[in-house]
């Protein structure tokens, strides 16, 4: 743009530019002289110059905010502080966190880290327990063991004389001898009991030679009772051969494959029956205790029971069209359940049972 002022050819913007430069002393002497002549000829241009000069004068008179005391020292300290170390990284990113914020963030980070570790450990505990135990398909096999006849399967054949003369009194001591064994099963059912004790005791009792009285009682048994006893002995051997079964606390087991444990019927029963109870409906309950008095007749039933908070049976009804016999119903009502560890706490629950006594 030419700085030669010819008002007739100058727009307002061009005139403003020349006037602005004039106010700053940016015009050459020749341009200044021509502008002076223009202003002398054009009062509007002269007035515009005065107005612009007034604005510049007011701008220059505007007071400036003063630097605060100690600014230099603070700037030097800030620079020394942020030029090196971790803060240098932050400041390079344009972040200037105050020291308290850095410490707070660090503390928060540590707390979150610790919390995450604690949560991870807590969540891994049940997972590890789940991995340690066999895979559970949701069903729970519960059995109860009961001391069977004291006569081992390998006992020598009784003498023919004893066969005919087996008095009732000779059977009574055997029954009394067996009673502690049955009680032992119940005691083992209590949490914290020695797990492998009942199984071992049971097997060792079988291996040991039976006392004469027991032998005498065994002589009285029918051939099918012998076969059932033999079957019970096989089951006991199987129990001993499986350490995880032997380690089962309280005689209550939870295994992936539904397992039956057949235990010889107590000699107090007229006939030796192998009992098995399967709990299928509620894995949250485990069978804790069974009544000593059991039905004498073979039975096979499926029923559903309702439990109260303490695991006692409050109601029982058949799951099939066949009604339960009064003996079985009484027996089922005498069952006692305990809450499985880690199961959801429910005020009451129903449990499906499959009872088999042969």
């Amino acid at each position: 743009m030419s700085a030669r002022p010819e008002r007739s050819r100058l727009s307002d913007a061009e005139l403003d530019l020349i006037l602005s430069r004039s106010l700053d002393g940016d015009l050459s002497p020749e341009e200044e002289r021509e502008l002076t002549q223009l202003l002398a000829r054009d009062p509007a241009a002269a007035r515009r110059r005065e107005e612009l000069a007034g604005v510049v004068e007011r701008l220059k008179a505007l007071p400036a905010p003063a630097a605060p005391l100690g600014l230099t020292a603070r700037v030097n300290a800030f620079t020394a502080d942020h030029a090196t170390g971790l803060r240098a990284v932050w400041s390079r990113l344009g972040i200037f966190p105050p020291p308290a914020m850095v410490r707070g963030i660090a503390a928060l980070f540590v707390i979150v880290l610790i919390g995450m570790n604690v949560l991870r450990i807590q969540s891994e505990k049940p997972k590890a327990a789940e991995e340690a135990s066999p895979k559970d398909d949701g069903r729970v096999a519960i059995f109860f063991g009961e001391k069977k006849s004291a006569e081992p399967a390998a006992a020598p054949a009784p003498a023919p004389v004893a066969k005919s003369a087996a008095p009732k009194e000779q059977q009574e001591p055997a029954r009394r001898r067996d009673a502690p064994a049955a009680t032992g099963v119940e005691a083992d059912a209590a949490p914290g009991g020695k797990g492998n004790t009942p199984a071992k005791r049971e097997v060792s009792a079988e291996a040991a030679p039976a006392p004469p009285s027991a032998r005498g009682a065994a002589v009285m048994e029918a051939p099918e009772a012998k076969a059932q006893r033999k079957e019970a002995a096989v089951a006991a051997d199987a129990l001993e051969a499986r350490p995880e079964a032997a380690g089962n606390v309280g005689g209550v087991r939870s295994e992936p494959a539904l397992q039956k444990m057949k235990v010889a019927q107590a000699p107090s029963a007229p006939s030796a029956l192998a009992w098995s109870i399967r709990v299928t409906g509620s894995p949250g309950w485990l069978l804790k205790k069974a009544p000593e008095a059991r039905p004498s007749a073979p039975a096979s039933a499926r029923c559903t029971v309702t439990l109260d908070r303490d695991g006692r049976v409050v109601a029982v009804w058949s799951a099939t069209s066949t009604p339960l016999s009064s003996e079985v119903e009484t027996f089922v009502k005498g069952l006692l359940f305990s809450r499985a560890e880690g199961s959801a706490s429910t005020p009451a629950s129903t449990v499906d049972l499959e009872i088999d006594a042969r």
Partner: protein
Amino acid sequence: MAARILAFDAHRPSGGRVRITSVVLAHRPPSVPDDGMGDEQAVSRFLAGDVTGFEAIVRRYSGMVFTLAARLVGPLDAEDIVQETFLRAFRGLESFRGESSLKTWLYAIALNRVRVRRGTLARLRSLFGSARSDAGPDFSLVDGLADGGLSPEENAARSEERRRLRTAIRALPEEFRLAVVLRDLEGLSYEEVAAVLSVPVGTVRSRLSRGRALLKEALE
């Protein structure tokens, strides 16, 4: 220190002792502290590992940078701008080639920090949906300074006039505002303004002319 106490507010509580509640510092035209060390010498010392070279630079220019920052973002945020500016200078002084003066180089850094700060604030405002508009820097302490030679009415009128002028400056488009501030308020030459803004001198002339004309219209 390029400042002096012009006034202070005091009141006498019931206890009887005068209590100073605020002090107003007025700025004298920024002067370069004479420590016997030129810019080149200070830079050379710093590059040789002598921290006193950088301290001399801070001592010489921190007041000027503060004034510029305070005019643009207000006195409250100006110190942060100054600190960030000199931190950047500390890191970038090795790349300072001396093509412009140290003063314009520092001013350019400060303007950049001001832009970054405004951008950050604008983003935060949009992010959190702040309904509060940017009220701009508060110069009430500086502009409300009473002149003992004037009547209260005249002081009030002058204060109001300054407030209007600052409002008009703030309303200018940024390119014009920066030219006006650097030239008319900071007293930089056309060449220095061009160096700070990284534009040709002709552009500075036109921006300055346009900015002044807009200000005149705004104040009419």
